[in-house]
């Protein structure tokens, strides 16, 4: 049988450098192949070459791409005819891949109008049917909605719907769920592989996440620096990787460590009692703003040296709770106690005492570091307070701290000259340099590649063991939690729905919501 897609010794060059080097693979009709690799492995460039949409600066440098046996046309008119009914593509960012200025009905219809001879009424009917299939409620009226009226997950469903409307023979999905939380990710992936199966569409899935591969691909091709490292049926490849690099990727999947003995019954370090955080919703003109409750009557105690994972989907209030516990957002009711003393109303010097003992690591290392400061100044900054340490000593300690997080000698760089993982190490160094008693890690590893995530988690854990700070680890990914948490707290809709020791929650979840989170978490297959 003719393969849908055949790529033979494909090379892609960026300037003088080859980002893809002699890559060959084929996809049979209806087959799902995953291209796996980390940032910079050339997997996205390959996907874009297949559909003829290489970004400026990248150019094919030899090799052949054949779609259903015929060489991929070089002329753009023929390529355009192929895009849509032949090859469809779903991008990573559902926020930016739908045009915010057009109603979704008009955007979905575009492809049908271009490639089919359906009447406008027929087009509308197919759009409605497809929207219904991807689980959009009340599809007929939603056709008139704009993209911003949908959540990220919904937008990705709509994107998927508009691509699948044309029943392409090949669907390319470039990190389709990386921007979504785990629950939504699972739903969108299920939907995508279901639709592909129904229509007999072959799937080329581009991902850095081996967890996805195990579930949704028939075969996998592991890429590293533009070359194929290993290829084979997905399950055996993951269970029994032959190459060292594949093994490193598999090992980077979260794995549960041994449980630590429960902390002795000590007084809590920090405790929230009936904490509420509310926001005024943006009301229309002349109308009283409604109140939105992000955190609703939450009580949570964290003991010295304990690592508590705060888990929930988007909008569960977990991030807000983390910030409220540092008094970075004001609470509207309830009490916050630190070492037994109320800090809810503190200000001035008393608040500074609390600030000095607490720290936070943010999710996005690109925006949490001041781009105008050198790395060593960023890490030295916390030592300004309490006042009194001379500048030379601050810088010396910053260098020691940078050494500790594995960034020795990089102190003179600016953040933009570091990789994402290195930046997150800087953020961790900044948080720990003052030896805080309590650290909030807000999705601290969610933005990182799997192997980098593994290393940064290991760093956090090692520092936690050494320094003994208590940690509230906020995340949507239960997989990450397994590695690091002593206790798990699950939040939904602003309330705590379940909490308990790690193993108890993971092995015997009491709530449906926890079970759903657990099912969606991408963990090491077979463990």
């Amino acid at each position, binding site marked *: 049988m003719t393969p849908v897609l055949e790529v033979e010794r494909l090379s892609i060059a960026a300037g003088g450098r080859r980002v893809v080097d002699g890559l060959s693979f084929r996809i049979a009709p209806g087959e799902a192949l995953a291209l796996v690799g980390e940032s910079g492995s050339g997997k996205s460039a390959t996907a874009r070459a297949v559909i003829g949409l290489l970004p400026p600066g990248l150019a094919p440098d030899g090799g052949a791409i054949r779609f259903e046996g015929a060489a991929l046309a070089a002329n753009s008119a023929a390529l355009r005819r192929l895009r849509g009914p032949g090859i469809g593509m779903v991008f990573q960012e559902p926020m930016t891949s739908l045009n915010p200025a057009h109603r979704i009905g008009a955007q979905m219809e575009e492809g049908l109008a271009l490639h089919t001879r359906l009447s406008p009424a027929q087009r509308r009917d197919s759009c409605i049917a497809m929207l219904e299939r991807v689980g959009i409620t009340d599809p007929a009226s939603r056709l008139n909605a704009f993209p911003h009226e949908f959540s990220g997950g919904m937008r990705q469903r709509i994107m998927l719907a508009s691509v699948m409307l044309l029943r392409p023979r090949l669907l390319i999905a470039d990190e389709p769920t990386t921007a979504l939380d785990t629950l939504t990710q699972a739903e969108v992936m299920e939907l995508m592989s279901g639709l592909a199966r129904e229509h007999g569409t072959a799937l080329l899935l581009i991902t850095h996440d081996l967890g996805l591969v195990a579930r949704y691909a028939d075969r996998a091709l592991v890429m590293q620096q533009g070359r194929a490292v290993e290829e084979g049926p997905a399950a055996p490849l993951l269970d029994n990787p032959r190459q060292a690099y594949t093994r490193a990727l598999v090992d980077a999947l979260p794995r549960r460590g041994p449980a630590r003995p429960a902390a002795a019954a000590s007084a809590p370090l920090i405790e929230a009692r009936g904490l509420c955080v509310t926001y005024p919703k943006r009301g229309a003109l002349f109308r009283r703003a409604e109140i939105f409750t992000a955190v609703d009557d939450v009580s949570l105690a964290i003991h010295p040296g304990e690592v508590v994972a705060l888990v929930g989907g988007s909008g569960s209030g977990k991030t807000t709770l983390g910030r409220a516990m540092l008094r970075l957002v004001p609470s509207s009711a309830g009490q916050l106690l630190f070492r037994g003393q109320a800090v809810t109303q503190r200000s001035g010097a008393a608040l500074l005492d609390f600030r000095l003992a607490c720290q936070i690591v943010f999710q996005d290392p690109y925006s*949490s570091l001041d781009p105008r400061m050198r790395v060593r100044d960023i890490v030295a900054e916390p030592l300004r307070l309490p006042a009194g340490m001379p500048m030379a000593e601050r810088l010396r300690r910053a260098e020691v701290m940078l050494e500790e997080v594995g960034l020795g000698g990089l102190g003179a760089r600016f953040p933009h000259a570091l990789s994402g993982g290195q930046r997150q190490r800087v953020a961790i160094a900044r948080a720990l340099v003052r030896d805080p008693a309590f650290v909030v890690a807000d999705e601290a590893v969610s933005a990182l590649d799997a192997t980098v995530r593994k290393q940064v988690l290991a760093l956090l854990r090692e520092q936690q063991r050494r320094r003994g700070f208590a940690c509230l680890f906020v995340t949507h990914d239960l997989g990450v939690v397994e590695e690091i948490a002593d206790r798990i707290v699950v939040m939904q809709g602003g309330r705590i729905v379940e909490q308990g020791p790690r193993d108890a929650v993971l092995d015997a979840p009491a709530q449906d919501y926890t079970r759903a989170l657990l099912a969606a978490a991408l963990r090491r297959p077979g463990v």
Partner: protein
Amino acid sequence: MRLRPNLLIGGTLLGFVFAVAAAALVWTPHDPVRTNLRRRLVPPSQNYWLGTDEFGRDVASRLMEGAVTSLSVAASTVVVALVLGMAIGLAGGFLRGWTDRILGAVNDTLLAFPGILLALGLLAVLGPSRWGIVLALGLAYAPSVARVVRGSVLSIREREFVEASRALGNSEGYTLLRHVLPHTAAPVTVLATSLFGWVILSESALSFLGLGVPPPAATWGNMLASARPFMDQAPLLSIAPGAMIATCLLGVNLLGDALRDLLDPRDGA
């Protein structure tokens, strides 16, 4: 660092203008304000490089003297506009709430008047004088600076490194100065350079209307204004100050673009 053509050309043009002004501080070929009615509208010669004007004053000397006046008026005005505008913009953008609403309302009202009209009104009250012009044009242009600063502060204050600074226990003032203010440098620098150009133009326009720096002191603007009736007989009288204004503006704008690129650390390292 790569030498950019913008930097090179802009720097050369502006350097020339400033060199002329600097030279005027110590020496001019003739006294720029001494009249000599027997030598009116003399064409260029060895003695009078650019000829003389309708009162027999040496044009080259007045051009040099004018460079000093025009540049110093423009520079002081830009400083006034920046100080006022940044104070308003920073306060509004960082404090938000009522402060921002009140400052914003005042600012928007001022913006609704054309700058030159506002300056005209103020000058009618203050009377034409060098410092009157600086104050009037400074007030007229401060709202645009405030707008730009407030806009960039609003976007920067939401970035996580500002929150990180608060989490470290840094005071609001320190956070504002250390982490917010430096990020306004790039847009403000570009704006300041354009302002410099606009002010020179506005000052010329005000002089043209008879509200500029009062004669006999020379500015490019009032030279241009007084040359108007003699365009046929002595075209150089208008061309010379016009060319200086154009050179200065072009230099300033090119340099502004180059500065913006240089101020971004992403290009440096």
